[in-house]
């Protein structure tokens, strides 16, 4: 029995068992992993197969999942949860699967060569730099979703990630990690990752930390995306609108006119590009902030009823073991195709070019404060003058969003519970501090 036939048979069985609503997900996947660490290289090939069921009705519901094919006769958990609601089937706009889906997984030799090659290249680009740990994952999966509300769909996914942790010998404080994601290992750009890692290690090795300085800030995509990811409570779910309103100015503006923000589950070429979400609801592009004005939060069809917002297919499943929940897919700042990142850097009279985040952002929307430890360069008349080993970029969240003066064209995504993307950003109104 195929995955789809098995899912249909299980939905029918669950209905016969007295469940008014039933939904079955069947997923199969393969992942190639190559890892380099202190113990030596590890090559892993994984075959994954799993299923998940949500069933019940107005009186209660349950969730069950397991490995292998969905079993028709398994014991079910008690339907003790809240009433279950499932979406109706909706027409799915035409969608052409990306050619990347067809690409085979990296073979062992390719994956191993890529990891060992980047370790060599990092040492060549920066004397004393060495890789502590590197992991390449290249995976593909096929998912089938069938429900008693008429949803009967299948879709494929392809995702590769490369995560590298490195240090400059004798300087443990330089330890840095860089991660990139693409739709397949063949689309990863390991040379770019090595250059970025070498730059970060170099400034963290040779730089200083100013006590307190203000000025214009140019945020590389990695820094902007980290901040955007930390601000997800402002963009996701019904409560987000309340937080955003509290941070808006007296003209009802959350951001500057340069700031537009969207989430797009169908983003062409996006790592998580898909025609439907984890419940089979069509995905689409949704504008959350338009030229500084907050339009609405990202909400699914259940949450949309709590306000006057437009729903979108945004329910995500981290895997077949996880209960589906609303989440971001490709949340990003809209880039300006006319602006080169180098132009933003050269426009700064005095300030900083922040290359990467060093730690986890601290964000307190209630107090309108944020802080993120960063590294980069001090800028004078558009030129890099002094490396910044680490310092806290801090200020108000509202000031951050309204301080965006220009955005570049180099939109880059990072994995952060979904994909979060930003181009290079030019900001004012923030400061760098040595300590909080």
């Amino acid at each position, binding site marked *: 029995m195929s995955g789809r036939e098995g899912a249909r048979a299980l939905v029918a069985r669950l209905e016969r068992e007295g469940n008014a609503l039933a939904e079955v997900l069947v997923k199969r996947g393969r*992942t190639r992993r190559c*890892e380099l*660490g*202190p*113990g*030596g*290289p*590890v*090559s*892993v*090939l*994984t*075959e*994954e*197969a*799993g299923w998940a069921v949500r069933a019940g009705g107005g009186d209660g*519901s*349950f*969730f*069950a*999942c*397991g*490995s*292998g094919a969905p079993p028709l006769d*398994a*014991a079910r*958990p*008690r*339907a*003790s*949860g*809240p009433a279950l609601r499932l979406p109706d089937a909706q027409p799915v706009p035409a969608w052409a699967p990306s050619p990347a889906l067809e690409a085979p997984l990296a073979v*062992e030799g390719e994956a191993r060569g890529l990891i060992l090659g980047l370790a060599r290249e990092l040492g060549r680009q920066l004397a004393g730099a060495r890789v*502590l*740990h590197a992991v390449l994952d290249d995976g593909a999966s096929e998912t089938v979703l069938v429900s008693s509300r008429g949803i009967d769909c299948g879709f494929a996914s392809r995702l590769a990630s490369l995560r590298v942790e490195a*240090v400059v010998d004798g300087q*443990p*404080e330089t*330890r840095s990690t860089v991660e990139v994601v693409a739709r397949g290992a063949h689309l990863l750009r390991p040379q770019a990752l090595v250059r970025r890692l070498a730059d970060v290690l170099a400034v963290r090795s040779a730089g200083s930390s100013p006590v307190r300085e203000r000025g214009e800030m140019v945020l590389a995509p990695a820094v902007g995306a980290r901040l955007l990811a930390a601000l997800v409570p402002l963009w996701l779910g019904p409560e987000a609108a309340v937080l955003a309103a509290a941070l808006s100015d007296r003209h009802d503006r959350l951001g500057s006119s340069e700031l537009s923000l969207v989430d797009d589950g169908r983003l062409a070429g996006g790592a998580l590009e898909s025609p439907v979400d984890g419940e089979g609801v069509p995905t689409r592009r949704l504008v959350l902030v338009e030229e500084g004005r907050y339009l609405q939060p990202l909400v699914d069809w259940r949450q949309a009823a709590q306000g006057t917002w437009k729903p979108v297919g945004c329910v995500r499943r981290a895997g077949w*073991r996880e*209960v589906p929940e609303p989440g971001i897919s490709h949340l990003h700042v809209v880039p300006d195709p006319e602006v080169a990142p180098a132009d933003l850097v050269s426009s700064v009279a005095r300030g900083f070019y922040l290359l990467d985040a060093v730690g986890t952002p601290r964000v307190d929307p209630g107090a309108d404060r944020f802080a993120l430890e960063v590294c980069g360069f001090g800028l004078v008349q558009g030129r890099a003058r002094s490396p910044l080993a680490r310092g806290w970029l801090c200020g108000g969240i509202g000031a951050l969003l309204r301080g965006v003066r220009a955005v570049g064209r180099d939109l880059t995504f990072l994995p952060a519970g979904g994909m979060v993307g930003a181009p290079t950003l030019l900001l004012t109104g923030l400061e760098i501090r040595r300590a909080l």
Partner: protein
Amino acid sequence: MPFVDLETGGIARCLAQIADRPDDHVEAFFEVATQESARGVCGRMTSESRTEKGLAVRLVRGGESWLASSDGISPEIFGRAVARVARARPGAVAPSPRPLSAGDVDAASGEDLETFAVAVEAAIASRHASFPVHWDLRRHRRWSRTLGSLLAPEQQHESYYSCVARTSWTSWGTLLLALDAAAAESVAQSLTRSFRAQRAPAPPAGPIDVVLGPAAAAVFLHEAVAHALETDTLGLAGDPEAALGVRLAADGLDVVDNPAGAPAGVRRSVDDEGLPTVRRWLLRTGVVEQPLADLRAASRSERLVPGAARRSSRHLAPVPRSTHLELLPGAASNEHLMADCGAGLLVGELSRGSLDPLSGRVELHFPWARRLEGGRLAGLTGPGRLEGVVADLLGNLRGIGAEAAPGGAGWCAKGGHRLAVWASAPALWISGFGAGS
């Protein structure tokens, strides 16, 4: 008992085909794991069940290893995994073992989970407190068996509970061996203290003496001793063997990893590479005696002893980790420790911790603490953070309590493995922590 009837001889013959060099290590890992959970608010908790089974075959040769894993158990899946890790096609192919399957495990209802949540809320109410809690209670069970080309050790089984309570001000979690009345009282006490600590003043900042209660000492030792002495951590800085004989702590500190001495339910006689676990002295009178080593590290050293390999799932290669840490008790009663400490903080529990393996800096977060003034317990403080360099902190050990308490040290997430870790520790008095909120 899913793996008692495995045809170990057939599996060993298949594995032997691909371990064709004298120093090769090959193993087959079979796993069945279940999780019953109840999530939500009391009276309306969603029952969830997760059941999975699968296998992995791994070959370790020299400094490299190859792993093939799958979400199923059958002769065909096993044969495919063997072929994938083989470095060359075997000349004579032994038949795949038959029969090869996992036996059934009994289903648990999950009703005891919701009953526990009700008991905790009643215990909170008895403390004259009340607040909404969103519960995530899970019963975790795993059966595993690791077979090699020469060894067929016994099946391992673990069973325990995790409890996460989400409130308007925090997300609090713990691991439990049983959902009994004592556990309900303990969870209620922690949550009530955390609730009251919201309005408490911030903890003092700067260098401070700290008495870590047994639960907090367990987390501290996991970060500062266990992680620091894992061979993959030591390997980041060079040769793990170089740690042997190094003084890491003050004289009185004896720390043992003893998987076979863990409480029933999480006791291990065999590690996840199929090797016998050992009672391992990590620190004897403050000196490193035997780091936590897996087979790969031990194969490169004559002085490192394997038997500490763990894996959170068949899909990941084993790594060296602690299972059950024991801090040998000292002579001081908890009252004496606090009296001798004089001024400082009593930290009863830690919500999380981390170790920077290169700098040796450890950072610990607590949900609440009590001030110590004149050697006596004073007011409650709000949440805060402790930090310092491991070698400095362990060198600043001032006293060890006489009463060790067993418990969960929490989830360890290092290296992508999510592992439950356990400990038995008395209170510790350490000076020179950096404190802050």
